[in-house]
């Protein structure tokens, strides 16, 4: 019946969420073939609306701590699905006879692909490979990491699967650059170098935050620039946070300073419907968040909303399909009166200006993974069929 007309079968199946499709692989051979077909995967990936799908949440540093969110909005159950097991990559590393102990972890995700660097423990921060892995289809691609003098600060994947890397020198922190992977020669090509900007004899450093995104041919990154005058070596250091944009075609770079008067550690940077959004906490002592959007011409900020969250506050949001941002909020351990230390995950709707609490991460859980700072690494992940 439904299987008789291939056009219509494709039409119907491409509207289904990934979870259902994976299950329907076991309906019959024909369905299995259709769902595994690259052409179908392409249609499905293009149709996916990541904000309306069921998602997973993963922690940047530790892969074993993943939660399944039943639908993007339902509360999480604590059973870690086998989806996030990196055992296939571990098997691959074993077969390549990687010497000594190594550590494999997941640092970012783009279009449902996980970026998993393999780090050797015999010397700090030396990377051997970077895997690009789809845990849904269990397919992966291996990319060599060549420069032993540099470590990678962030990796960004473009929709046509170009791999863009921000790397920093081990000793000279001001020496950072942007590189692109060339698959034909299996090498990295430097596109832009920050090192040339060092003019004075002050101690300068550039810190690249792991928040890069790609939009319309341009990569955006949150960067931190710090100078310490050579003469004093004392506070106050001059510290500036800015959004750095780099166009991959014209190779032109731009900078946009972040608004200064905020507590700058707890910030979210992301894209929704072609707009770049930033959420910043007003100060470390309160739970007031400012939501800002970068102006189209990259000239400044539009202040959109300000939300005040308090631990007693009841979240009011409606269940919306689109335009939702996930916001990880940490309520520090010392507040109030050393009794509760909670990490909460909020979902914020950019259109209706409402938010609601999605999940609470308990004390022990959080403690195991870097406490206060660990919580900022929580990301949402949406399974798709994309091939690496």
């Amino acid at each position: 019946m439904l299987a008789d007309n291939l056009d219509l079968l494709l039409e119907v199946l491409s509207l289904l969420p990934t979870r259902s499709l994976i299950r329907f692989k076991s309906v019959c051979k024909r369905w299995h073939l259709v769902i595994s077909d690259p052409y179908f995967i392409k249609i499905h990936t293009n149709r996916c609306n990541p904000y309306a799908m069921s998602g997973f949440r993963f922690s940047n540093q530790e892969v074993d701590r993943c939660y399944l969110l039943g639908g993007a909005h339902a509360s999480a159950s604590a059973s870690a699905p086998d989806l996030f097991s990196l055992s296939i990559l571990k098997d691959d590393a074993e077969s390549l006879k990687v010497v000594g102990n190594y550590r494999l972890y997941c640092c970012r995700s783009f279009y449902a692909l996980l970026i998993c660097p393999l780090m050797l423990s015999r010397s700090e921060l030396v990377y051997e490979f970077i895997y690009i892995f789809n845990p849904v289809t269990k397919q992966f691609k291996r990319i060599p990491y060549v420069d032993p003098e540099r470590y990678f600060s962030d990796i960004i994947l473009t929709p046509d699967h170009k791999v863009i890397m921000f790397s920093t020198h081990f000793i000279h922190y001001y020496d950072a650059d942007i590189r692109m992977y060339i698959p034909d020669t299996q090498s990295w090509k430097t596109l832009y170098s920050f090192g040339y900007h060092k003019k004075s004899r002050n101690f300068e450093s550039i810190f690249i935050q792991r928040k890069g995104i790609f939009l319309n041919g341009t990569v955006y990154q949150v960067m931190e620039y710090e100078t310490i005058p050579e003469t004093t070596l004392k506070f106050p250091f001059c510290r500036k946070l800015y959004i750095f944009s780099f166009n991959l075609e014209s190779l032109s770079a731009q900078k946009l300073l972040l608004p200064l008067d905020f507590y700058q550690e707890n910030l979210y940077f992301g894209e929704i419907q072609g707009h770049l959004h930033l959420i910043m906490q007003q100060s470390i002592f309160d739970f007031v968040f400012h939501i800002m959007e970068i102006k189209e011409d990259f000239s400044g900020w539009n202040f959109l909303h300000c939300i005040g969250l308090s631990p007693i506050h009841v979240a009011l949001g409606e269940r919306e399909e689109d335009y939702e941002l996930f916001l990880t909020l940490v309520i520090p351990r010392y507040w109030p009166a050393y009794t509760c230390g909670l990490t909460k995950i909020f979902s914020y709707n950019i259109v209706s200006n409402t938010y609601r609490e999605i999940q609470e991460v308990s004390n022990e859980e959080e403690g195991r993974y870097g406490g206060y700072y660990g919580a900022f690494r929580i990301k949402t992940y949406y399974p798709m069929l994309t091939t690496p």
Partner: protein
Amino acid sequence: MATIITKEQQEKEKMVTLVSSDSEKFVVEQKVAEKSHVIKMVMNCCGIESPIPVRRVKGDILKSILEYCEKHSKGEAQEVMEKWDKEYMDKAEKDLVFFHDLMLASHFLHIQELVDLIAVTFAGMLKMKSPEEIRQKFNINNDLTKEQEEHIMTTFGWAFQPI
């Protein structure tokens, strides 16, 4: 002003006859029939004087399709249309064979809006089902071997867990 009205009136009077596979005749306005890309092409090259045979579509299906086309050629407010579409789908999806034929026919007649609407409804029907339920519902033979099936179950176990 006056000329425009008469033009509209003239167009309203342009009727076309469609004949289904079981020889049932339907007389509809030209703009209603134009919703189907295929019929539009036929009308353009053969004119509207003689009845147009729609040989692959049965009478009851064609009636239902024309009902949809008529509603959608009126240009009503979006909310009204959405509500009507929902009721239309609720009625159609009760009978699976009819629903399936409706989809095939709208695909054959190239009415993309209707194909999309049916595909979304269809996907909604399938979404939460298990493979076994799908096989039963659509009368599909399970031609996968035991090992293949088990392999899928173990590799993608998470997709089979209840939410």
